[in-house]
């Protein structure tokens, strides 16, 4: 057990050691602790002897110079243990961040590049191709907003089994947020989808549809004229397909376009005209009626 006066003695000793280290003399210190002076004096004197008996500066300096070559040898040895990134951790962190940023950026640029060959279109009629725009956009961020307003003008031919000529006027308004142009095969007015048959060549199709190979490639986003696969769908001028009848029967019109077609007209252009004239007549009648009322 440590008694209270022992604690006091320990504190007095500590105070004196601190003061001696700060440059006070032994007597100055002991004067501050008169009640412990007798006991502290021999202890502090012994402690000061330790300080006095340290190795001389001469010996220490000589030792330092004798050991120095050993230290310098160790310093000259290559620092193989530690790679540079551990010696410069901040630099390594910045470099790795730059690397990650570069990888992300390059992958982003790669997705913005025109994807010509990879884009596969699944549906045959162009009217069905237009509404599901998501399947054609490589990156969801750059989704072009396509608002199709297809007006289907179907002229029914005399033979019902024959392939009907469907003129699709999509009239799309594309609002692309991306500044980089994304090549999405969009058919000009009057072009429809065509499934490539075995034996077809792009130049052959171009000749048959009276267009140029370059125009076909441009519209369909093709970069290599040889790279067409049978079963792949491309866009061709529609009127040529009717004359040469190379197109397979575009059997059904997509469900999305059917109501639009019904709304636009009852199926024939003549009917459209009739409707228009009816409307005209109605308005005329109204005018007449108005006039009548005024007259009354």
């Amino acid at each position: 057990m440590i008694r209270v006066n022992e604690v006091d003695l320990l504190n007095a000793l500590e105070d004196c050691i601190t003061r001696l280290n700060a440059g006070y003399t032994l007597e100055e210190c002991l004067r501050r602790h008169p009640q412990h002076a007798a006991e502290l004096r021999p202890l502090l004197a012994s402690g000061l002897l330790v300080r006095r008996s340290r190795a001389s500066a001469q010996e220490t300096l000589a030792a330092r110079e004798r050991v120095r070559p050993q230290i310098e040898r160790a310093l000259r040895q290559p620092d193989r243990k530690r790679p540079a990134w551990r010696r410069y951790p901040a630099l390594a962190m910045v470099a790795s961040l730059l690397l990650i940023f570069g990888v992300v950026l390059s992958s982003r640029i790669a997705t913005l590049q025109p994807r010509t060959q990879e884009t596969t279109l699944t549906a045959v009629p162009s009217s069905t191709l237009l509404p599901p725009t998501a399947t054609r956009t490589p990156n969801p961020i750059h989704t072009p907003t396509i608002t199709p307003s297809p007006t289907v003008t179907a002229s029914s031919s005399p033979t019902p089994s024959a392939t009907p000529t469907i003129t699709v006027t999509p009239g799309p308004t594309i609002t692309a947020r991306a500044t980089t142009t994304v090549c999405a095969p969009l058919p000009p007015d009057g072009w429809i989808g065509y499934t490539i048959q075995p034996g077809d060549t792009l130049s052959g199709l171009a000749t048959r549809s009276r267009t140029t190979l370059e125009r076909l490639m441009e519209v369909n986003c093709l970069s290599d004229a040889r790279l067409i696969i049978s079963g792949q769908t491309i866009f061709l001028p529609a009127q040529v397909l009717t004359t040469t009848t190379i197109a397979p029967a575009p059997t059904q019109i997509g469900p999305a376009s059917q109501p639009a077609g019904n709304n636009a007209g009852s199926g024939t252009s003549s009917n459209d005209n009739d409707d228009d004239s009816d409307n005209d007549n109605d308005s005329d009648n109204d005018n007449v009626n108005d006039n009548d009322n005024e007259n009354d």
Partner: protein
Amino acid sequence: MQSLVNPGSARVPGRLHWGNAESLTATTALGQNAMIILVLPDLPTEDRLLALARRGDREAIAEIYDRYFEAIYQFIRMRVEDEALAEDLAGEVFLKLIAALRGGNAPWHSLRGWLFRVARNVLYDHYGREKQLTTTALDEWIPAQADSDPEASFAASADSQQVRQALRALPADQQEVLILRFGQMLSLEDTAAVMGRSISAIKSLQFRAASNLRVALTAAGRGD
């Protein structure tokens, strides 16, 4: 006067205190109580030296060696009789520092305390290997001439060699606390940090150590 600066390039008169913190201050005692504290901005601080050394700056490591070798050597030499052995052990401390710097285990602060801790471990390793414990022998020690008043005379008569031998007869932790507090003038807090003990434990230890040293010196002075 204890100075930790390289004596060859002593830049300031007075006593140098190597703080753990930012600035290196030199205090010059004027009279008894007046102390002027000079802040030396051109001296790189311990922490900045450490940062440079960690990056493999050889000049910084060389400067650390110049600054701290003396303290480390003194610490070891007080406990080791053989001068050549003390040199080897002190060199080992700095080789460990280089290895720690390269291995990323070097301290960020309080380099001096870290070096003292390494020096302690080097001493323990050595004594462990050599089976040479600190109980060297008071009886081998040739005492100073006995005097009528040994209490008064031992301080005057004991030479450094005798004091060191009396010191080495003490338990290792008592040797350490006396060397650190009196020999190296470390603060109570720094000593506690180096030895890994509480402040109150150090207070008791230094009292016991000083008492035991005094007894040993007195006994030797009497020629026991």
